[in-house]
């Protein structure tokens, strides 16, 4: 595993000042994938933005884990609809 692709959970939590249990809860609700190697837990760098968003939603808006799961699913649907809307708008241009 390349160091630049992952970040140890301990380091991440120390930087963001969040408890490790929060990250484990995200994993429990399948909102985040944790990689284990030589007894060290890592988060993929590509997941960072997603985790940051979860931290904000949890700590700023007091959304619990179940709520984060629901928000995550609905946001996925919203993004898909926005993309579909964009494609349909492009197609409509054919008739303009």
């Amino acid at each position: 595993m390349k160091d630049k692709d992952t970040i140890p959970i301990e380091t991440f939590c120390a930087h963001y000042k969040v408890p490790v249990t929060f990250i484990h809860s995200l994993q429990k609700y399948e909102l985040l994938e944790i990689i284990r190697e030589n007894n060290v837990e890592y988060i993929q760098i590509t997941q960072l933005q997603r985790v940051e968003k979860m931290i904000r939603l949890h700590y700023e808006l007091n959304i619990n884990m179940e709520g984060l799961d629901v928000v995550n699913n609905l946001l996925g649907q919203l993004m898909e609809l926005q993309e579909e809307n964009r494609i349909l708008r492009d197609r409509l241009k054919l008739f303009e």
Partner: protein
Amino acid sequence: MDFIDYYKTLGLNKNATEKEIKDAYRKLARKYHPDINPNNKEAEHKFKEINEANEVLGNPENRKKYDQYGKDWKHAEQFEKARRQQQQQRAYRKTAAGFGDSGYSDFFESMFGGAFSHQGGQNVGFRGQDYHAELHLGLKDVYKTHKRTLTVNGKNIRIAIPAGVANGQEIKIKGHGGPGINGGPNGDLYIKFVVQNDPQFKRDRDDLYTTVDLDLYTALLGGEITVGTIDGKVKIKVKPETQNNARVKLKGKGFPVYKKENLYGDLYITFNVKLPTRLSAKEKGLFTELKGLR
């Protein structure tokens, strides 16, 4: 600079308790938070407003200051003057109407001199704000990969625009957004491509559509004509008895497929058969003769 009624922003009256302020902020934040309103600039702006109102009213000291000076702006002039001296060293550019890079309004900056650390929460380093910009391009501009230099918030950024980029598509330029807060990383710059319609070609994903005029005789008897594609002119064969609005496909003469080298969509040509006008007496006679044969 307009006076901002922070109580109104949070939907409160001036006698609101600290709990009422907190509850009102939480309720509005849940509605307008940028994380749950992706690609919604209106919500983003509204969130900045309520966040700013909370920074002032949610802090007893700031609220007192605001109640004392903010109500009658003219009386706060002396206070503003002192604050302005502090601000002279802090250059900031505007990113949205009335809001600077800090995400706070001119009114807020002049009264409180900038952002506070996030109260009540943890000392978390947050990513800076993501910036969003639009780049308007013609259809022919995105036919080939090319580089452009953009000026975003006073900085020149050279970006490669890949061939086949779609209308509404966004690319992310990491770290070119707003500065991070509390040591957090910079935000990202998102550039949305707005690809204008072309008068000659319509685009649907990777396929192009165009209409070509065809004279009656070629339509009837067939032949070879030259048509314009987005990449130059090509000769095509027209089948005899081609009907008006008939469509032919030129494989691989459409738009390049995004990030797939040497892969192109198709070009669909619709024929618009043009009837001859101002017929001579001889032509009329020949057409009459033809009519008699059918």
